[in-house]
C-alpha cells in the first residue's frame, strides 16, 4: 500500500490497512536500534521540531531518539521557556517553525484537537504526541506493536484497559486502534472515571477488576492522573489500589497465566500497579519503551515520505 498522509493526528482516522502498514514498517525499523551504529541516513537534512506544551519526558525523548536515529536534526521547544509565555498563539508558533524551514512538528498540547488546528495552518507535517483527553496515537501504536510481537496477532485478542478512562487519550487511541484490528476491548474503572457513551466505541464496560482480568490476554494499566482531578472525583490512592490495583493475587486468578501487563508510564507504584507486578516477567513495560522508538521512527519516516508532504 501507499502512505499518503502528511500528518498523524489520531488513530480514529486511519484505516486498518494504514495501521498494519505502520506496524510492519516499525518492525523493519526495530533492527536499527540493535546495531552497533544505531543510525540510518533516511531523514538526513530534515528538521524535526518537538513542540511540547505539557511536561513530558518519555514521549519527547522517544521522539528525539527516533528522529536522531534517522539522522534528522531535532529542536526541542518547551512552552514554559518559549514565546508562548509572551502570548503567542499556536498557529503563529507553527507558522514561525515552518518559516524556519523545519519539516515535521511533533505537538503535545493539553487542548483536544490542537494538532488538527495546527495541521490546517501549516504545510509541513504534524504528528500528534498527545492532545488533551483526545488521542495519543504513537503511544497506542507502540502498545499494539508490543501486543503483536507477544501474540503474533491482534485479531481476537482480549485486551482490558484499566484506570482513568475518562481523562485518558492513551485509552481512546488504543480503543480506536485495537477495535479496528479486531481485538476485543474491555474498559474497567470506577463509574466516575468511565466517560459517557464509551460503549459506542465498541468496548465492554466493567467496574470489577477481577472480571476485567479473568478473560484478558493483556491488561493495559493507565496511570491515575491525579493532577487532572479538578472536581475531586478521584478515589483516594489507597482506596483505588485496594479496588483496582493490579496485584499478584489478582493476576493469578486470571484464566490466561501468560497475561501480559502493559503501562504507558510513568508508573505510580502501589497505586495502579503493585511494585512486584511492575517488575515481574509478565510485565512488558520496558519493552514498550524500546518499541516506542521503532514505532516513532516509522511514523516520522512515513509522514516525511508521503507525496503530500513537501
Amino acid at each position, binding site marked *: 500500500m*501507499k*502512505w499518503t498522509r502528511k500528518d498523524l493526528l489520531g488513530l480514529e482516522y486511519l484505516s486498518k490497512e494504514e495501521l498494519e502498514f505502520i506496524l510492519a*514498517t516499525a*518492525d*523493519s*525499523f526495530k*533492527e*536499527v536500534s540493535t*546495531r*552497533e*551504529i544505531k*543510525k*540510518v*541516513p*533516511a531523514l538526513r537534512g530534515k528538521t524535526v521540531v518537538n513542540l511540547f506544551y505539557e511536561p513530558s519526558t518519555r514521549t519527547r525523548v522517544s521522539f528525539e531518539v527516533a528522529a536522531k536515529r*534517522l539522522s534528522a536534526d531535532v529542536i526541542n521547544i518547551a512552552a514554559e521557556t518559549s514565546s508562548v509565555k509572551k502570548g503567542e498563539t499556536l498557529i503563529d508558533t507553527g507558522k514561525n517553525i515552518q518559516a524556519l524551514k523545519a519539516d515535521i512538528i511533533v505537538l503535545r498540547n493539553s487542548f483536544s484537537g490542537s494538532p488538527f488546528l495546527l495541521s490546517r495552518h501549516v504545510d509541513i507535517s504534524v504528528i500528534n504526541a498527545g492532545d488533551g483527553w483526545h488521542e495519543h496515537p504513537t503511544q497506542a501504536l507502540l502498545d499494539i506493536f508490543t501486543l503483536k510481537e507477544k501474540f503474533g496477532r491482534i485479531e481476537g485478542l482480549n485486551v482490558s484497559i484499566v484506570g482513568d478512562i475518562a481523562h485518558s487519550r492513551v485509552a481512546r487511541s488504543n480503543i480506536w486502534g485495537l477495535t479496528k484490528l479486531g481485538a476485543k476491548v474491555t474498559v474497567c474503572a470506577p463509574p466516575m472515571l468511565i466517560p459517557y457513551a464509551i460503549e459506542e466505541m465498541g468496548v465492554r464496560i466493567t467496574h470489577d477488576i477481577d472480571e476485567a482480568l479473568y478473560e484478558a490476554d493483556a491488561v493495559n494499566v493507565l496511570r491515575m492522573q491525579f493532577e487532572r482531578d479538578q472536581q475531586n472525583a478521584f478515589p483516594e490512592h489507597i482506596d483505588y489500589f485496594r479496588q483496582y490495583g493490579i496485584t499478584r493475587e489478582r493476576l493469578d486468578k486470571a484464566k490466561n497465566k501468560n497475561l501480559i501487563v502493559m503501562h504507558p508510564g510513568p508508573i505510580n507504584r502501589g497505586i495502579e500497579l503493585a511494585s512486584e507486578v511492575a517488575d515481574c516477567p509478565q510485565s512488558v513495560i520496558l519493552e514498550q519503551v524500546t518499541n516506542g522508538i521503532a514505532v516513532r521512527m*516509522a511514523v516520522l*519516516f512515513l509522514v516525511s*515520505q*508521503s*507525496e503530500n508532504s513537501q
Partner: protein
Amino acid sequence: MKEKTKILDKESINRILNRMAHEILEKNKGTGELCIIGIRTHGAFLASRMGTRIKLIENKEVPVGILDITLYRDDLTLISSQPVVHKTEIDFDITGKHVILVDDVLYTGRTVRAALDALVDFGRPTTIQLAVLIDRGHRELPIRPDYVGKNIPTAQQETIEVRMEESEGIDEVVIIEKSHLPS
C-alpha cells in the same frame, strides 16, 4: 506496449550461479572469512542460493545475510513509487570478513553505493566484493562488479526483469522494451 525477449532461463541461471560460486571460492581461496550478503529482494534470494552452492562445493557453511537499502537511498524524495522499508537481517559480525555483496541487476550503481554505505555501518570488512547476475551498463557512479553472471548491453529505455522462483514462481531473465518511448 511492451515486448519481451527472454535472455536467461532456469538452466542457464543455474549454470551461471555454479560458475560464480567457483569464481568466488577461487579468488578467496576457499570459505575462510567469507560471508554473503544479498540486497533485498532478488539479491537476497541469489545470496541464499550462492550459500547453498558454496556449501555443496566446499562442504562448509558460509554466513548469509540480507540487506535492505531503502533507508540509504539517495533518491528517496525523487522516487515515484514510494519505497517500503523491510528488515535487514545480518546476525553475524562483518568486521575482518570478505563480504560478497550480491544483487540481481547492476545498472546505475546507486543501489550498490547505498549498500556500501549501509555495510560500513555494520562493521569494517577486509574486502567487499560485488557479485551481480546481470550487468546492463549505464553506470552513473564509479562502481564495478567483481563477478558478473552475464553482461547484457541495453538501451536506457529497456528494462531488465529478473524473475525468481522464490518471488515470481519462475526462474528467468527478460528484456522489456518500452516501445512507446522514442529510441
